[in-house]
């Protein structure tokens, strides 16, 4: 397609405006987090005045940030590991043909529609029954499998040519090895997508940790943020410094695994 220079300029212009709208909130939060001005003064200053990083130091000590960070990392690690393993297994099973396949798929679909906020009491009772209250496993269990990722895997597995699988089976590989040696390596992007989505949803979980943790030291970052929000509602920079410190890991993980994530979605969601 011949691209006239004018349309390139227009396209760049439009994209710059879109990016400006997406980035303004970040700039505004970072600016507020590095100044101590009275946030209710009007007019708000566009450029930070007397910037300093001490709000971040305050946040590190007011709320046990290191401990909350550790908890969040452990819970996310368990959730991501669980996701990768369970979703792959479920997806592999769904590539097979069996009697109740249609109803199982329907079941998965309907699970997507159950709003989590409404299932807190029974979910709590079940976790209490399992004796997982106030534990990392208890925190991560509901997040250890996600339906969207199962279908992403299913599409990725079906994209692998059947001849390859038959050849492997001829060589005498058992089912488990078929998955590990052949299917998984070939659908590495789908794994990346699953890792990022699982990380995002487990890292940002807010209501479930609130209910399940009893001791303050077991809380995760979103709870720390909500706690901060309530207690020091009106602090100038400290609350927004905390918000920045909570956002940084999500952005960091995304930027690190961005290429695989996009390719995973390409081969996954749409072809399936």
């Amino acid at each position, binding site marked *: 397609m011949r691209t006239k220079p004018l349309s390139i300029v227009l396209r760049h212009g439009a994209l710059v405006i879109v990016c400006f709208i997406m980035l303004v909130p970040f700039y505004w939060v970072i600016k507020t987090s590095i100044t101590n001005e009275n946030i209710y003064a009007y007019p708000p200053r566009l450029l930070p005045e007397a910037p300093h990083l*001490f709000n971040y*130091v*305050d946040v590190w000590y*007011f709320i046990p940030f290191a401990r909350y960070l550790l908890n969040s990392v452990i819970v996310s690690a368990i959730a991501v590991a669980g996701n990768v393993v369970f979703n792959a297994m479920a997806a592999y099973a769904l590539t097979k043909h069996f009697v109740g396949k249609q109803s199982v798929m329907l079941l998965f679909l309907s699970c997507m529609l159950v709003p989590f906020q409404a299932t807190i009491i029974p979910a709590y009772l079940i976790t209490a029954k399992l004796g997982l209250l106030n534990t990392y496993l208890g925190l991560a269990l509901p997040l250890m499998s996600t339906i969207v990722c199962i279908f992403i895997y299913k599409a990725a597995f079906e994209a692998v040519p059947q001849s390859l699988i038959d050849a492997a089976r001829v060589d005498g590989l058992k089912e488990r090895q078929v998955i590990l040696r052949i299917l998984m390596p070939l659908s590495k992007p789908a794994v990346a997508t699953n890792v990022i989505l699982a990380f995002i949803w487990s890292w940002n979980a807010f209501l479930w940790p609130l209910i399940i943790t009893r001791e303050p030291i077991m809380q995760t970052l979103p709870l720390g943020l909500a706690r901060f929000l309530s*207690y020091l509602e009106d602090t100038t920079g400290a609350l927004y410094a905390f918000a920045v410190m909570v956002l940084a890991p999500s952005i960091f993980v995304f930027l690190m695994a961005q290429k695989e994530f996009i390719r995973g979605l390409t081969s996954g969601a749409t072809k399936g």
Partner: protein
Amino acid sequence: MMLPAWIRNRWVIVPAILAISIVLWNSYVTAHNGGLVEGSVIDAAGRPVPGATVTLFERSFVAYTSKDTTKADDAGLFRFTNNQNHALQLEAASPILGKSDRHSIRLWFRAQNFRLVEPLRLAGR
């Protein structure tokens, strides 16, 4: 010498850099957290004020509460050695010359050794 391929992969480099910087920072912290706060007290004309009482305020969540007081020596210098906080205020006072305004100090980590650059000025208020 060519590094093996997996070293140059970003999944190894970035965590390595992170780990190193954390270790360096923590070693710097342990070397400098004696809880030392030093400074000097001068009067309106700039002369040191021996014997002035200096109060160290420490910030809990909202309010600054006074933690410790000491006396300036003959050369108008004072020193605290037990600061465990990261947000402080210093105020010098002497019966004749009155009080200085509260000089607030923000440290990078708790109990960081700190040396007050410009002295507390007793403005005779």
